[in-house]
């Protein structure tokens, strides 16, 4: 039986179909989790995909965190369930305090839509468990607010606990410490600006995201096995 991955949709989310397609390509069963429902229906993993949740009103991700579904996502995350936020999803997870810090506007003041090179820094996470430390992955970015920032204490903590998941090899947006993605202390909640689902097939120009997508499915499988 294939694992079930829930893909959260807010008004303004626009990457859910790409994420669903990419995960199903590798045997995952995906289902949409509507923001207005207060349940994640027992899925084995959750993806908060990219887009412009609630029109990015007030701040990116600021309103999305009040959606009923986010309460259930938070509970799932705190119980150890794999949760991955991609791009706007990363911003939502930060605003929901499931990850520390915030994403500010790109240092170059430009919207960036290009392929970035990422170095895998830790493999004890829901998104990188099948990768190797030092792997360099070519994965597209597509954002205006991708410039990660946090206070000094948080950065020290991220370093001490090995929670920088991926770094840019050539920082495109001014992100603090070249951070492209981070995780929580347990490694089950991961947020990153680049879009692994857009690097899921050679036809798309890169299939380097496959190892990340398969890692997520592996984390979902462990979760499903754990609960049986």
């Amino acid at each position, binding site marked *: 039986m294939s694992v079930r991955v829930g893909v959260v949709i807010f008004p303004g989310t626009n990457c859910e179909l790409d994420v669903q397609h990419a995960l199903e390509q590798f045997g995952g069963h995906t289902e949409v989790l509507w923001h207005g429902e207060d349940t994640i229906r027992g899925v084995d993993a959750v993806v908060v995909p990219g887009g412009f949740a609630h029109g990015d009103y007030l701040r990116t991700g600021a309103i999305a965190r009040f959606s009923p579904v986010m309460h259930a996502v938070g509970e799932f995350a705190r119980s150890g369930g794999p949760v991955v936020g991609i791009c706007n999803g990363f911003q939502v997870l930060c605003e929901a305090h499931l990850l520390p810090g*915030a994403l500010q*506007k*790109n240092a170059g003041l430009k919207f960036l839509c290009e392929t970035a090179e990422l170095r895998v820094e830790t493999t004890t996470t829901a998104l990188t468990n099948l990768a190797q430390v030092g792997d360099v992955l070519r994965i597209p970015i597509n954002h205006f607010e991708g*410039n990660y*920032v946090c*206070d000094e204490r948080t950065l020290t903590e991220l370093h001490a606990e090995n929670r920088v998941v991926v770094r840019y090899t050539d920082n495109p947006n*001014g992100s603090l410490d070249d951070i492209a993605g981070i995780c929580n202390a347990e490694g089950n909640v991961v947020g990153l600006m680049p879009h692994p689902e857009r690097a899921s097939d050679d036809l798309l120009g890169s299939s380097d995201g496959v190892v990340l997508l398969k890692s997520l499915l592996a984390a979902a499988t462990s979760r499903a096995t754990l609960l049986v």
Partner: protein
Amino acid sequence: MRTPGRRAAVGSIVTMPVFNAHVEVTHLPGIADPAGATVERALPALGYTNVAQVHIGKTIRLAVDAPDAESARAQVNEMCERLLANPVIEAYEVVIS
């Protein structure tokens, strides 16, 4: 202006004065402000070459039912911490009238 006896919000059972809160949200020092930077670069085109430190933030106005100005201020400060501003990247200032 304090307007004693007027009800602002639906559901308040005890009639309380209404306070107007003016919240200004600005970027913390060092946080990117592309809108401000763009305007700063545009002003010299109109001959204003003596302008620097252009900053574009947000203004949020609220009417709050509260027993007194201090509790209104305390509540709006809390709203800022929890929603209106993100303390990681933004500062805020509350003026109650």
